[in-house]
């Protein structure tokens, strides 16, 4: 397994709790079907509890709990199942500002899209991590520098994660126009 963000491989401080396993006395991510328990735990241990969402979950229901959820992990059962992109986009649009993780066998070619939809980090299972070196993930961000979309939201919690992965062509055209108008 491997965890990475736009800077490269990072250490995973979060325990991933599956099924009925007891929650450890450390930062942990609980399954969505233990939502009540996760919220109670989060209230007692702020900043240490996250939730893992299957990709058929309606993320809007979580809005009242954004304040206590320090981490939301979104499941990607397959790289080809793109529901997680819209879930991340929804979470950011309705105001989630905590850590957002994509968890599953996604591929380096999707890295820019994942970041632009609002994910901060990607957790890969071992069989994918072994095949796809970290360099390929970082190279992907170098290779594609431009996008035609706008509205990749800048978030309030600061850090390098703020800038979109690709520069918006529409924003650059706009800047070029206003420069032209000034010059």
């Amino acid at each position: 397994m491997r965890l990475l963000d736009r800077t490269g491989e990072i250490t995973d401080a979060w325990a991933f709790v599956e099924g009925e396993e007891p929650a450890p006395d450390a930062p942990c991510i609980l399954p969505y079907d233990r939502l009540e328990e996760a919220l109670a735990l989060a209230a007692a241990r702020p900043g240490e509890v996250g939730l893992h969402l299957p990709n058929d979950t309606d993320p809007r229901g979580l809005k009242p709990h954004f304040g206590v959820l320090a981490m939301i992990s979104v499941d990607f059962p397959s790289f080809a199942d793109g529901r997680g992109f819209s879930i991340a986009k929804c979470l950011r649009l309705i105001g989630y500002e905590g850590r957002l993780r994509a968890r599953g066998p996604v591929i380096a070619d999707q890295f820019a899209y994942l970041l632009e939809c609002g994910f901060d980090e990607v957790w890969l299972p071992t069989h994918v991590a072994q095949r796809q070196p970290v360099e390929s993930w970082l190279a992907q961000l170098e290779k594609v520098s431009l996008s035609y979309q706008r509205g990749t939201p800048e978030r309030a919690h600061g850090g390098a994660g703020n800038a979109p992965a690709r520069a918006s062509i529409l924003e650059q055209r706009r800047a070029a126009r206003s420069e032209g108008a000034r010059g």
Partner: protein
Amino acid sequence: MYRYDEFDHRFVEERVAEFRGQVARRLSGELTEEEFKPLRLMNGLYLQLHAYMLRVAIPYGTLAGRQMRMLAHIAEKWDRGYGHFTTRQNIQFNWPKLNDVGDILDALASVEMHAIQTSGNCIRNVTSDPLSGVAPDEIEDPRITAEVLRQWSSLHPEFTFLGRKFKIAVTGCAVDRAAIAVHDIGLQIVRNAAGEVGYRVLVGGGQGRSPFIAKKLREFLPREDLLPYLTAALRVYNLHGRRDNKFKARIKILVHEIGIDAYKEQVEGEFAAMDRASVAAPWEEWTRIGAYFALPDLPARAGEDAGLERALKADPAFAQWVEQNTHAHRVPGYRAATVSLKPVGGVPGDATAEQMRVLADLAEAHSADELRITHEQNVVLPHVALADLHKVYRALAGIGLDAPNRGLITDIIACPGLDYCALATARSIPVAQAISNRFGSTRRQAEIGPLAIKISGCINACGHHHVAHIGILGLDKAGVESYQITLGGEPADGPAIGERTGPGFGFDEVPDAIETIVNRYLELRESPRETFLQAYRRLGMAPFKEALYEAA
């Protein structure tokens, strides 16, 4: 025509470099075949029955001469000397080698072309009216909207791994030549009571194994809301469209299963909650793109031309072609001319490199350097002066593309079928050729009048058989090709899905069956002015069914 700026160029060049990297990573084993497949598909590369196939995007079907010439060059250098124009206004090369694809994409990029999103579960090439900017009754050139959408949908971070492909079509006229009712989203440019330009939005149309006519999502959508609204529509689809069954994954199934009202409610909710201004294309971007689609500078001409009148009298075949293959132009003294890629007995939609070069020359010399590809698999020279029509016609005759059959029984749409396609269950092209030969006489075709035959070689319906006046669907029945016939389909004028006549026909029986249907129509029509479709709508299936099955 739209021209790339520095950003468009860089975007496409980066995409080609990225694809070369993906091929290298596939060969090194870093990417599995399963991972590589959607990546190559999103760059237009299919693995077909005998070889790779590269589908090149022709956005909204518009091409300049130099671009058509590059397609000819690619056909000669990397393929077998021809290309196949498709029902989505694209072109397919049937025999490229994997190792050459990077070079082909570079060659395309050099003339502002690409193969991005011509396949895969993403937003596909946006299609439009081949008479855009020409038709006298047009509200606005739909290619402006189509280009805005092309850019917005290219490598969209949220919508590049959808449940299934997503097709958008745009028309700017009340007369729909873009078949918007059989698209995932259909946009008709309209004016509201205040005179503002916006869109009538349709959703959930499509063909394939479960054909649906699109339903109305919005009567009027203001232009500035287009991208936010489509974002909402796509987001609801991406989150809630079925993923359990590839054949039920298109948006038409979602809309059908939850109902248009429930779907609309979710879209409107998403749209209302969205920060629209951050998603919308800025107004300056609309005007920037719009300027590229201004009517070309056509020299003023008289509305009639004495030379043309003489040629029409002297050359009856030319007169027939002008009558059947040319269209009114908004500028006096000009016509738009359809170049039929359906010569009698030919392969529908195929053009050789030589033919492409002549078309490029004709566009440059006589059509303001523009060509259009139609969803009927023909080519349009949109801006031909009346005084040049005869010269253009003779040049077309010189390359065998002078068939005066636009909209007639031999103007057949056909998918590649079992001759090329890995999905096909039966041949399409030879069926089209046999029917075309059977009805080859120009006089007989004119007597029959408007009649659209469309042939698909499998249930996926790439040949649009569901919306054909006479549709033909080739299936495999225990190892033998069997062809179902449908009647009464229509993509635009009161859009309708055709109805099956009954049991299928063998490969060799199809031309006879079509002839039986046509003869019954000729017997029963009220006058030569009553078209096949009108007659079918009046008479229903019964007389045709009887002719097909009871006489035998």
